[in-house]
């Protein structure tokens, strides 16, 4: 058994090990538990960091519900004085936020689809490869993790101009997806590797070809990692600033981060702090809701390749 599928057993053993460690978690604080002082100090310091994390966000939300006069006169940190939705209404009227949302949603959806499909398809062939081609490709793709995107924006600007996909949504989708592909492929490969070989053998006995094995075995099995990669790609696309800044120009395809930046640097609205804060909070809200619903997948999607 071990001789036939050594790596698979190793992978299984490794995941069993991980499960065991998690199960043994209560014993983790064996030594720590001895010191009540240390526990209390940890609690205090941890809470201070909690305040540092939440403080700016609380300030932003509080300010967004104030009028400009209230912003200048009321207590900056306590919910005193009167509140209003006027910042949100002027944001809706002055920023073209509807089209910004639509463009960002297009970018995110396109990027997620492209990254998820391409990375799963290639991860399947990398794991079940029948030639050196897939092995060499994988090495080349892994190299991309090391390439900082800032270093290649000038060639990207040049190439997209020459290909006439500069300032086009699908051009932006292609480049954004390409920048996320290396980590996505790595995440997928690490997951697809865990599919037991016996299942492939069973598919082969049933006479399935490569495509139907992919369709009926790999895709259903990979559903959890598809969620993780989608979040990784979706966040990367939704929050990206540099690529839209370099690769788009007109208002037609302006995405949220860029629109938000232009809005805030526009002298008409930029000086209106409550409206800018309303804008920021409004664009953060959908992600926050998704995070609350899908926390586990978010943690893996955010951690990317750094967690294994």
């Amino acid at each position: 058994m071990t001789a036939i599928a050594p790596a698979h057993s190793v992978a299984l053993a490794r995941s069993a090990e991980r499960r065991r460690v998690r199960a043994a978690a209560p014993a983790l604080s064996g030594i720590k538990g001895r010191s009540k002082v240390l526990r209390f100090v940890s609690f205090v310091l941890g809470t201070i960091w909690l305040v540092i994390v939440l403080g700016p966000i609380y300030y932003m939300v509080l300010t967004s519900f104030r009028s400009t006069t209230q912003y200048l006169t009321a207590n900056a940190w306590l919910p005193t004085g009167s509140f209003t939705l006027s910042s949100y209404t002027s944001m809706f009227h002055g920023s073209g936020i509807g089209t910004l949302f639509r463009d960002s949603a297009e970018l995110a959806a396109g990027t997620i689809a492209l990254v998820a499909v391409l990375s799963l398809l290639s991860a399947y062939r990398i794991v079940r490869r029948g030639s050196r081609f897939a092995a060499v490709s994988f090495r080349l793709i892994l190299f991309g993790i090391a390439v900082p995107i800032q270093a290649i924006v000038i060639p990207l600007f040049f190439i997209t101009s020459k290909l006439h996909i500069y300032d086009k949504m699908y051009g932006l989708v292609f480049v954004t997806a390409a920048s996320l592909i290396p980590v996505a492929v790595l995440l997928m490969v690490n997951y697809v590797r865990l599919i037991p070989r016996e299942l492939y053998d069973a598919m082969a006995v049933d006479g399935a070809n490569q495509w139907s094995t992919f369709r009926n075995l790999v895709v259903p099995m990979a559903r959890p990692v598809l969620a993780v990669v989608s979040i990784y790609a979706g966040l990367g696309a939704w929050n990206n600033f540099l690529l839209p800044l370099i690769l788009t120009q007109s208002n037609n395809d302006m995405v949220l981060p860029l629109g938000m930046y232009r809005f805030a640097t526009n002298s008409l609205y930029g000086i209106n702090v409550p409206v800018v804060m309303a804008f920021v909070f409004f664009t953060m809200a959908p992600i926050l809701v998704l995070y609350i619903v899908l926390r586990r997948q978010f943690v893996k999607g955010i951690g990317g390749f750094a967690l294994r």
Partner: protein
Amino acid sequence: MAASTAFLRDSQVARRSGYDTARRRNFLADLLGVSPTLALYGAFIVIPTFFALFLSFTNWDVIGPLKWAGFSNWSRFFSDPTAHHSLLVTFELAGLSWLAQTPLAMALGIFVAGTQRYRAVYAAIYLVPLLLSTVGLSLMWQDLLFPQFGGLAWLGLHLHMTFLSRNWLGSSDLALLTIVVIIAWQFVPFHTLIFQAGRRAVPAELYDAATVDGANVRQAFWHVTLPQLRYSIVTSSTLVLVGSLTYFDIIYILTLGGPGDTTRVLAMDMYNTGFVETEFGYASVIATVLGVLGILVAITLVRFTGFGSMEGGREGIS
């Protein structure tokens, strides 16, 4: 063992008849499965990487054609005080970011790896900065730090904490430090995740053994936790260094490299030289330096940690 090898040999003999067709079919499947990814990745990551180097030997101003420039851009880089200053600021930012982020993230990661229920809740909240877009986060901090009217200035005025009422982003001796703090606020949560996972993977037996040996909390940290976290430390440190060597977004949004050129890091210098002054040839020199710095540090990561073992999937393949 011998039996199973014999079995493998037999099955190979049995397959021999259709072997070449099967191999060709496998290669075709590889080609169909991997090529689309490779095409996209090749066109927009691999080719641009080498193209950046090529462009550094040319002059291009968007409107005119590419002109060969030889080594003139490179020799200009070596005698350009602005570029040298940018390089210095970049290293300063990387060093300060490491000091600000890695020890803090390690402490927080060990903290949230603990078993108390409230720590799981804290861990979930700690991640919130990563959900904000960089633009949103920068604008939030800009208004918080706004001189006179911002939240911090308010505290300074009303609670008589005058050290808070400063022009955080507008004064040349504070701007870089302020940027370091904002970047840390954004990325410490990410590194906390790394250390949390690292701490959780330390086998409990090691602590049991340390307890038996009579180790106290501090000794257990130095002799068990820290050595066991070395992989997390190298991963996190490298990501902090690569990230801050190439950092752009917050600086562009908040200071544009100013005041003066106190926060003009390499990436900012490249953007200004290229996209503002349209000297794309010279900007490509800066971009190449940036890329080489980033890749060198990233390769160090692979070397030191055996990150390459991620390709270890090879052994398991049919």
